[in-house]
């Protein structure tokens, strides 16, 4: 299976279970992700904002569909290319943008930054800047649910690049062995940093490779809302019922370079422009109108409200002060007297 940058969304009749309410919630989420990214890029380009930024353009559908099946008390772990995951899991937008801008009103008082967003209240437990570093931690979060006898599920997001690092394999083997309720969401965007998939592995299918650990694994079109919605329901349901971990390879396409300002010269320009023409947010919008009969005005209202929320979040972040000097040595330890003097 290859990424469906051309095939119509919703083909195969996989729309069962996706109510209009759910479809519109997903639309709001993908629109919020897209709008936030667009606003950040605009701010970075003009010099209004300053941060390291890793594009999520093209990957919006994956967490938006997944989070339809997650509760607030379910856990999520993600990676530095994870703003979409954080928004979908429910980190308040004001706090998220403020953190990315390094402001004291951010989720971590400006001390984590865009690569370390977390908010336990929303269940977003860790954003790691180390490729593959989140998977072992997700196994531990899932283990806590098993030991405490709750039915919470942990979802860990990572890119296809993370399938080449040891931590990923240790974590998958351990999760399968212990049958913990974790869903490994591999967002296969076809690039590990600046290297194409085919240039770093001979595996034709990641799902096939990870099935070897003795867990359920499947490949899904990560750019299709109905397909992702259905696959996520099945995977999360399976983990929640105690049947052990699932590996989901979600095929998508990174619509840009590794990070803001980075070159894209290693990307096939034709492939990129074709993917851009079929980018999943616009495609989903067309599908809602054409296939689901959702009114243009309904979608436009959501878009207007999202843009206004994003603008408010950026405005609040800009107005917020940076963390004060007293924050430098705060939160190193739980007790300040343990700090070396």
């Amino acid at each position, binding site marked *: 299976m290859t990424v469906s940058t051309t095939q119509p969304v919703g083909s195969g009749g996989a729309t069962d279970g996706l109510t209009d309410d759910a479809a519109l919630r997903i639309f709001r989420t993908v629109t919020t992700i897209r709008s936030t990214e667009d606003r950040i890029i605009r701010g970075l380009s003009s010099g209004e904002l300053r941060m390291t930024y890793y594009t999520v353009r093209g990957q919006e559908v994956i967490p938006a569909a997944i989070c339809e099946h997650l509760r607030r008390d379910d856990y999520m772990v993600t990676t530095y290319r994870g703003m979409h995951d954080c928004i979908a899991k429910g980190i308040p937008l004001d706090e998220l943008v403020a953190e990315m801008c390094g402001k004291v009103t951010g989720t971590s008082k400006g001390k984590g930054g865009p690569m370390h967003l977390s908010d336990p209240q929303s269940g977003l437990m860790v954003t790691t800047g180390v490729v593959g*570093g989140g*998977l072992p*931690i997700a196994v531990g979060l899932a283990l806590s649910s098993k030991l405490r006898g709750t039915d919470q599920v942990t979802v860990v997001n990572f890119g296809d690049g993370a399938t080449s690092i*040891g931590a990923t394999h240790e974590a998958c083997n351990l999760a399968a062995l212990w049958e913990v309720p974790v869903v490994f969401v591999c967002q296969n965007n076809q690039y590990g940093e600046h290297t194409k998939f085919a240039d770093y592995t001979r595996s034709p299918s990641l799902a096939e490779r990870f099935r070897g650990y003795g867990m359920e694994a499947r490949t899904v079109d990560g750019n299709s809302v109905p397909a992702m919605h259905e696959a996520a329901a099945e995977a999360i349901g399976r983990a929640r019922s105690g049947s052990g971990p699932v590996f989901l390879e979600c095929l998508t396409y990174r619509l840009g370079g590794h990070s803001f300002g980075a070159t894209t010269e290693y990307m096939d320009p034709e492939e990129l422009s074709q993917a851009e023409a079929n980018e999943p947010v616009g495609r989903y919008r067309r599908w809602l109108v054409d296939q689901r009969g959702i009114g243009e005005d309904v979608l436009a209202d959501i878009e207007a409200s999202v843009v206004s929320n994003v603008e408010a979040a950026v405005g609040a972040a800009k107005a917020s002060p940076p963390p004060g000097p007293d924050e430098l040595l705060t939160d190193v330890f739980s007790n300040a007297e343990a700090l*070396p003097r």
Partner: protein
Amino acid sequence: MTTDDPIHTLSEAVNQAMDIAMAEDPDVFALGEDIEDPIGGVMKGTKGLSTKYGRERVRNTPISEQAIVGAAIGASLVGMRPIAEVMLMDFFAVAMDQVANHAAKLRYMSGGRTNVPITIRTSVGGGRQFGAQHSQSLEAWMMHIPGLKVAVPSTPHDAKGLLYSCIFDDDPCIFMETMSLLFTRGPVPPGRFEIPLGVADVKRAGDDVTVVTWGWQVPEALAAAETLADEGISVEVVDLRTLVPLDRDAILRSVAKTTRAVVVHAATQFAGPGAEIASLVGHELFGRLSAPVERLGAAYSPVPYAAELESLHYPERKRIAATIRAMA
């Protein structure tokens, strides 16, 4: 400590601390390689615990140090108190992304919204001809990463009290179990017993020279002090017990009295913990010292296998005594 306390090995004391912690708090659990019975840990630290508390709470893992430490971190983020065992300290090199980039930093990176109350127990080799990859004392590496607490007990008594405190501390704690001390015996208070982290202990009082040390080198320093007492040199031995937090007051109090200090450790001398302590003493007691602060650490080499070379690699009682003699 009273002389009436029952006598146990350091390994048994470690086992007692875990047993009591697990009995008290259902959120405490242990994971690591071969920690379930009948093995009970290759150094026997968890002997009997899987039989008593079940294999859910005392869990064997594959040989996967990244996953062991990472899983401990994950469970701790939501309030559990995992005790991870990394069989040998040398294997921290395998797990270091989880230790240094995650355990140590998640509290700070989250602005205090999450914390990592894990304890990583590990055996530290040395003096047993285990070679270069099974013998390293890597406490300086741990100390250099902001966010980690480091405990190195030298007696069964201290091991029990410090491990209990580590388990219930809200920060990641590295608990170093020196292999050559694991089966030494000493009095251990029965029942629940804690020693606060960051409080040094004067293991021998003296007036002429202070030895600042920890772990394996404590008995070596005490033996040197005994020898020197016969020569009329009175040595005070300060056992730091934890390196982070560092009890600087205890160090300065002792050296202010003796005006001479030597720092002794099994970690590499170059850029070792002794440099930090020597700097502290030199700065705070400048002008009051009767001699420059001396350091005795491991030689700047991988740990050699041959017994003749290994004995030259680490400090030991005779070299400690000679160093003190020269400065007293």
